[in-house]
């Protein structure tokens, strides 16, 4: 990746990628009642950490991610990214990777990756160069001219990741990015993501349903429960890196996964 030209300039570099979530709440108003989607959620995420949000459906983990992306305001509490609030989307600070269907099918892979740059009027040549770098980083060198329907599910998600990284934001948010993939592709993509993460040093916030994926990828796991959505446990994952397939069957891995499962079973 090329060094980025335009990170939020006010913030000292040392804090790039830090996320502070402080007593955040979210209430949805419906015609009949107020639904508390998130209640008193606090997390302090250090720069460069890989954190996974896990929990049952309806626990508000995706809602929390949308708030971190500036796509939805919180009802109470504060969210700081690089030390500043995020009232609206800010692609300089935050890149977002969505589920599989989020690539534009009418654009080629490289045009999809260029999309965030095109929105800001970056010149064609510079755009193309950055997209090529990003595609190279995710292992898709030479696939830039293909359209999404000519790519496999895993390749599409690599393009999505490249699109999230193309502006070199310090934070990468990932909303169940591998949920639609088959088991084998999912494992491979997990390893790929860890490789990309260690090569770029991003802070990653990753939402998933899969406990195995959570433990395998994360430095720390925040376990959430539903009604209202809140954080019931915050685990450090002390497994060494690089993570390997063999760790999946180890005792340490199993007991971490069991601990998460017990929380989820209680609240589901």
């Amino acid at each position, binding site marked *: 990746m090329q060094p980025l030209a335009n990170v939020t300039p006010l913030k000292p570099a040392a804090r790039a990628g830090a996320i502070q979530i402080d007593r955040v709440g979210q209430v949805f108003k419906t015609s009949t009642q107020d639904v508390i989607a998130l209640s008193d959620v606090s997390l302090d995420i250090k720069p460069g950490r890989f954190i996974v949000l896990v929990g049952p459906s309806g626990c508000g983990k995706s809602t929390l991610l949308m708030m971190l*992306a*500036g*796509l939805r305001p919180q009802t109470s509490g504060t969210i700081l990214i690089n030390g500043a609030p995020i009232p*609206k*989307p*800010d*692609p300089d600070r935050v890149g*977002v990777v*969505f*589920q599989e*269907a*989020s690539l*534009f*099918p*009418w*654009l080629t892979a490289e045009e999809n990756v260029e*999309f*965030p740059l*095109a*929105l*800001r009027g970056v010149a064609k040549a510079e755009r193309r160069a950055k997209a090529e770098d990003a595609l190279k980083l995710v292992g898709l060198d030479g696939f830039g001219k293909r*359209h*999404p*329907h000519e790519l496999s599910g895993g390749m599409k998600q690599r393009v999505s990741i490249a699109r999230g990284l193309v502006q070199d934001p310090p934070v990468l948010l990932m909303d169940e990015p591998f949920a639609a993939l088959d088991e084998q592709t999912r494992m491979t993509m997990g390893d790929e993501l860890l490789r990309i993460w260690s090569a770029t040093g991003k802070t990653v916030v990753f939402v998933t349903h899969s406990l195995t994926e959570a433990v395998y990828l994360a430095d720390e796991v925040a376990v959430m429960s539903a009604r209202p959505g809140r954080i019931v446990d915050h685990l450090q994952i002390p497994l060494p890196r690089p993570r390997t397939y063999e760790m999946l069957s180890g005792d340490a891995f199993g007991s971490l996964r069991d601990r998460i499962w017990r929380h989820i079973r209680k609240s589901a």
Partner: protein
Amino acid sequence: MADHLGLKIARLAIVVAVFAGWEALSRTGAVNPRLLPSASDTLATLGYLLQRASVRNDLLATASEVLAAFALAVPFGCLIGFLIAENRYFADVMKPLLFFAFSIPKSIFLPMFILVFGVGFAEKVGFGFFSTIFIVIMSTTTAVESVKMEYLTVARSYGATSAQTAFRVYLPSMLPVLLEALRISMIFNLTGVILAEMYASRDGIGHQIATWGENFQMKQLLAGVVMIAAIAMAFNETIRWVETRCSHWRT
């Protein structure tokens, strides 16, 4: 590729067979040639008619009416369709009403158009517009609804402005459906204008066809039919060609 060629040959063979059968029926006297002039006579008449200034003026009149009606109905219909699709309340109120209106045969309103606009350009354009606008509205609504929420969320998360979202997400995403709508709208539009010309008009190719029919000029009548059919097919195929170029990603 061989299959593809085979299909084309089969299609061509059917067209040739239709014309050959037509020719044979007329030449052998199986059908009275006064009722069904032969294909070769009809095509010769077509060539002769196209050289006549009055026929060319009729074609020009029809073309200008069709284009005027189309140029009014498409932007108007798109705008209304867009508003309906984007506004939940408006959609809930309007959609059933539009479906009711769409189901009514438009031709029964033609006498009213003649009373309101008189016989002439405005009547035919007005009726062409009226015949077209419902299908444009309904197709636009479908096109807007075909834009996935995910695409809009992606655009928003990368800071797209409303104009950027419109031109970089809505438009390309809707384009295949819109082009198809355009194509089908033109069929309705052409039908409306020709019908208005046949019913009450002083010029236009539809008017000529009606006159030829009334005067039992079968050669001219059939030549007119071939003429309009060819024009309609040419337009249809042009849009379809653009369609396939713009929607190769739709699989």
